[in-house]
Each structure stands twice: as structure tokens, then as C-alpha cells.
């Protein structure tokens, strides 16, 4: 933590997106689990994730960033899955 004397004048933050140093994933009580074989790559999980915690590579969902996922479960609820089998399910943390 910086003291006030070390802050930039006007409290300007010069490093964009520096909040990534704060791992908000520690708040999580439920953990999303991705089941790849049920995934249709609709990317709704990526779009609706409030915490930018869905990892995407070349336009495909590849997993979760558990450093930042707060476990809200929006992705699991919105996941259409394959033949009503969800590709994202929520599990209690620590199980």
C-alpha cells in the first residue's frame, strides 16, 4: 500500500487496468465447472460474466480464471448446453 506522499498528484492512476492485482476470486463460495463435451461455444458465458473471468482463445471458451471469478453463477444459468445438459455447473467451493 502506498502512502499519500507516494501518490501521483491529483490521485491520478497511471497504470490502466491495475485492479487485476486484486484477486477478487477469493470471495467465491460456489465454483463454476466447465464440461467441455456439453459446450456449444455460444460464448454467452463470456459475454454475461460480470467479472471478465471466462477465458477465451481465438473465439473459443477455454475455461475460467479462478483468480477473478466471484462465483455468481450467471454463466451457469445462461448456459444453453447441449440437449439440456449444461456445460457449466456450480459446485460448492472446497468440495
Amino acid at each position, binding site marked *: *500500500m*502506498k502512502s499519500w506522499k507516494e*501518490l501521483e498528484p491529483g490521485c491520478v*492512476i497511471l*497504470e*490502466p*487496468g*491495475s*485492479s*487485476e*492485482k*486484486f*484477486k*477478487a476470486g477469493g*470471495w*467465491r463460495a460456489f465454483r463454476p465447472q466447465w464440461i467441455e463435451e456439453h459446450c456449444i*461455444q*455460444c*460464448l*454467452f458465458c*463470456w*459475454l*454475461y*460474466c*460480470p*467479472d*471478465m*473471468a471466462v477465458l*477465451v482463445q*481465438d*473465439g473459443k471458451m477455454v475455461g475460467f*480464471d479462478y*483468480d*477473478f471469478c*466471484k*462465483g*455468481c*453463477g*450467471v454463466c*451457469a*444459468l*445462461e448456459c444453453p448446453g447441449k440437449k439440456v445438459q449444461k456445460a457449466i455447473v*456450480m459446485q460448492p467451493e472446497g468440495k
Partner: protein
Amino acid sequence: MATPLKLKELSKKEVLFNHGHRLCAGCGAPIVVKMVLLAIEQPVVAVSSTGCLEVSSCISTFTSWKIPWMHSAFENAAATLSGLETAYRALRKRGQLEGDIKFVTFCGDGGTYDIGFQSLSGAMERGHDMLYICYDNGAYMNTGIQRSSATPLGANTTTSPAGKVIPGKLQPRKDLTRIMAAHGLPYVAQASPSHWMDLMKKVRKAMEIKGPKFMNILSPCNRGWRSRLDDAIMLSRLAVQTCYWPLYEVEDGKVRLTFKPKEKKPVTEFLKPQGRFKHLFAPGNEGLLEALQRRVDEEWQRLLEESARAQEVKEEEHA
């Protein structure tokens, strides 16, 4: 060329609102911000008034924003942004700055409907080239769920507590989108994150139009709405399907509905999953439910009529 509005293509873009922000789990506001920033193609400067989004995205030396962003006071986000926009124009005139930069605010309903209304109205009247986005969660959620003028009739908040004395908020919600349309702005729209394509199209359209623009976007809040952690998108979808939150735009005074639900659901479907309306389903409060439904019906009817009239005018002009 603009990125096509396809999730596969959009997901290759950098999201300019970073993770590690301290908004609650399942909050609607970061979803709204993410969608808006994904839709905008140009460099963008943003201002937020005090509110959930501001306090949680900028703590101490941490910021979640990857764009130039400024926190103003509660009441003057629009005034601050209009100042920035004017400075940009002045610098461009002198040849000290190049490029097409867009100006956007992200403010909550408290900072828009109530406290920031004078500066918003002023900035819009002066005609600054900016887009004012209000993420409407329907109360002062940041300070502990106090009623605002965006809170719907009958909602239980800490300053309109439902109990023996009053059945929640006694006054209906202020229709700010309509008030902004009455300012005669070139573009006013209402959107919901559940209909992301509609939302992004509206943002893109607003970016193309020069002058003051206003967008009101629904943003569910599971803490304040007393709903489940995971239903932000589901509730915003129900709000649209019940016509509690109709999706429309007003371009140069002409109303156009951008989404008509195939089957208009009763408003109770939107109210039922929310604990803030729990008391309305108890015996004795049927009147309030009826009043809420009546208000939604009247507003929907008015929009249908106005959009039909705008369509007629358009056809006459083309004839």
C-alpha cells in the same frame, strides 16, 4: 472496418474494463459497461459519477478502466464530461490533437435521475457531442438500498420500508427516458443487457450521431432487488418480456420499438423472483400489483401508438 456484432469476433477484442473490480458477485453494472465498451470502436473517454460502479472500479491505486476515465462528484458527471469534450474540441481546433475521440458517461440512477439531473439536463441542452449512459438498478444500492426516483412503485427499500405503515415505495418510477426524449435530443434509447445485440446496435448508432445522446440501460442488482445471485440476465430478460422495461429508441422525436415480445407476460413474473416486491403478493396489496400492471400497460400502449404514428409519417414522407 467495425467488428461484426458476433460473439466470436467480439471475444477477440480487448475488454476495456478489467477484472479485479470489487462490484458484488452477479452485479449487472460491469456487464453493461463491458457490452458498451465492446460495441464502441473509436477511442473513448469516460466519466462516472459517484455510485457503485465508481467506488468499486477505482479503489486507492487500483483502477479497472483501461480507458481514460475520471471520477466526478455525484451531481456533475455530465458537466465534467461536457468540459472534457469542449477541451477536446478546442485542442483539435488549434491542431494540437488529432483523431475521433468519443465521450461517454457511466452513471447510476441516483446520479442521473436525482442528484445529477441538473447537470445532465444542462449538458444535453448545450448540445455537447457525448453519450450519457445511465445504468439503472432502481435505488441507491451503493449506500445500502435507499429509494431513488427510479425505484418502482411498491418496492421495499431501507427508506421506503414495507411494513404496517407503508407498503413499500408510495410513488411510481420517474420515466427518465421519456424526459430525455422531451429534451429533443437526436438520439435517446432504452436497452437491457439480456438483449445484447440490441444494446450494442444502439450504442453503435449513438456513436454515429453527432450531438447529445442518452441511453438508459437496466442493470439488475441482486443485493437491492433481493433476488438470487445468478439471475441478473434472467431478470433483465423478464423485464423486457413483461414490457416493464420496453426496448425502444427515439431518433429526432420519432419513436421506434426495437423489440416486441411475442407474448406480453404479466408484470408479476418480473416481480415475483424479487424479494423487494415480496409483500405485494400478500393479501391486501392486490391494488398495488394492479397499479403496477396498469402503469406498464399504459406505457406500452403509448409506445405502440407513438411508434405506429412515426411509421405512418415515415411512409408519407417516402410516398
